[in-house]
């Protein structure tokens, strides 16, 4: 009934858009005008044969009439309902709801989108407030100076019989703390002022600067491909980065990307290719292929690279798969499984925790090297490619539900959780 209801509405809209009379269309497909009227008003189910005839008369595909643009909208309603498992929404009646109450359905979809957007904003802001070392340092400096000023001033004001030498010391301390306070407040204001300017570099870590630059270049540097002008052509852009540390990091990544480009030609990177097989074929480390796959022109896949401590040293986000800006990432990422098993590829299907969690296939590999030779340090670098999987947004099929970091993860039953999530109980479900 629900499918028929939508189809009837679409039939009527299409006929009226073409300026056709109901009676003429009914006659053309061999039914009575009152019967077509019932169909158009969603009171009769339309048979497949009649639907085919009507589609032919109205010049549209049968699928368009049967599914319509509402297909995606209904999927959106279902996703919104499943994001709140206790909501009691009748999932099996989503089509009927959309057909009978299109305005309310649009409102529900809009609210779900708004909630998702706000959650993303909360995630970003919380990440910034919780883990941003610049903010944390500035706040700590200000609060420490305030604590000292308060105690010292209070002593000076309330201790009537204070000895002159103590008075002099405290006055000197007060002066020093007031200067610290001024500097700390200035740093804090500079940080907060910069937080709403996309181009501002105030308080942005060098790694973020480099990632922002690479993102602006679409995560691909064509200059480094064989036959291209090479790294020298990027020097002017590198010089435009705000900090010397970021310029140094950018040059390091350019060197890595240039070496990768020389080893793995773009032509060898077929979508969906097995990176391990490809690496074997080309005689290169799997990590090289993973980087090339993620950093090839237009690649949708995300990329995370960490060192032996687990710190993320490069984050190319994938749509729907969040990476933490600071702090530790989700311990369930295959990246960390790979980190513990150098030389062994790790692959897993993942579902991003939260509303409308998307599915991804992750491939991770860890390479180790010994720059100091025998007896020297072992350096490890793990690389994880996160490629979106098409079809379906629901968990299942053995996929692991993962987040970006515990603080903003919606997974409620996670055995690896380090700290509570700021997301609501309802969202955590």
């Amino acid at each position, binding site marked *: 009934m629900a499918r028929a209801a939508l189809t009837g509405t679409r039939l009527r809209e299409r006929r009226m858009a073409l300026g056709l009379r109901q009676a003429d269309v009914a006659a053309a497909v061999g039914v009575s005008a009152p019967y077509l009227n019932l169909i158009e008003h969603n009171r009769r189910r339309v048979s497949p044969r009649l639907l085919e005839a009507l589609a032919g008369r109205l010049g549209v595909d049968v699928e368009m009439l049967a599914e319509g643009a509402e297909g995606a909208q209904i999927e959106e309603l279902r996703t919104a309902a499943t994001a709140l498992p206790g909501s009691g929404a009748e999932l099996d009646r989503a089509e009927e709801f959309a057909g009978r109450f299109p305005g309310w359905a649009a409102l529900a979809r809009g609210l779900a989108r708004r909630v998702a957007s706000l959650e993303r904003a909360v995630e970003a802001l919380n990440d910034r407030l919780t883990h941003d070392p610049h903010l944390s340092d500035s*706040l*700590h400096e200000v609060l420490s100076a*305030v*604590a*000292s000023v308060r*105690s010292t001033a209070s*002593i000076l004001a309330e201790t009537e019989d204070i000895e002159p030498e103590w008075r002099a010391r405290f006055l000197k*301390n007060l002066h020093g*703390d007031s200067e610290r306070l001024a500097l700390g407040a200035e740093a804090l204001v500079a940080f907060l002022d910069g937080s709403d300017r996309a181009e501002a570099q105030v308080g942005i870590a060098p790694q973020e600067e480099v990632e922002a630059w690479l993102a602006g270049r679409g995560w691909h540097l064509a200059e480094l491909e064989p036959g291209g002008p090479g790294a020298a052509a990027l020097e002017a852009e590198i010089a435009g980065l705000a900090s010397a540390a970021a310029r140094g990091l950018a040059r390091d990544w350019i060197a890595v990307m240039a070496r990768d480009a020389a080893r793995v030609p773009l032509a060898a990177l077929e979508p969906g290719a097995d990176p391990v097989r490809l690496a074997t074929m080309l005689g290169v480390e799997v990590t090289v292929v993973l980087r090339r796959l993620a950093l090839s022109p237009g690649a949708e896949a995300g990329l995370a690279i960490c060192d032996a401590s687990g710190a993320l040293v490069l984050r190319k986000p994938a749509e729907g798969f969040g990476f933490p800006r600071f702090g530790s990432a989700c311990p369930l990422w295959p990246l960390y499984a790979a980190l513990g098993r150098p030389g062994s590829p790790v692959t897993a299907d993942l579902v991003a925790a939260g509303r409308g969690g998307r599915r991804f296939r992750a491939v991770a590999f860890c390479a180790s090297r010994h720059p100091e030779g025998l007896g020297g340090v072992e350096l490890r670098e793990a690389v994880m490619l996160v490629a979106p999987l098409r079809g379906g947004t629901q968990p299942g099929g053995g996929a692991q539900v993962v987040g970006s970091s515990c603080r903003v993860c919606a997974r409620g039953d996670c055995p690896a959780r380090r700290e509570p999530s700021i997301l609501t109980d309802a969202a955590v479900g």
Partner: protein
Amino acid sequence: MTSHVLLIEDEPNIAEAIRFLLSREGCRVSTLHDGIGAAEAVRTERPDLVILDLMLPGCSGLDVVEAIRAHPETGDTPVMMLTAKGQGRDREAAEKAGVTLFMTKPFSNAEMLASVRALVGK
């Protein structure tokens, strides 16, 4: 009897102010400026109260508290933790580590003295 307070605080001006206040209160105050060796100092000095900062150079204040609590001779020493990080999870972590009293910076001198009196039983 004079109470002995071990103060572990890396901010010299805060340490000086607290030391002054507690000395006038009649306490004997010894100070450390980082967390390294703090637990050992508690074992050797056996203070009546430990006041320490959460964020210390070399070693977290929480690690110091856990070390104090883990040793049978110092396990029941009252510990007051000072911190500029007053968030709920810091407080929870402090309680879990065994902190007796958690005080957020900036604090008032009167509040500090009242807490010290309560903890050393004066």
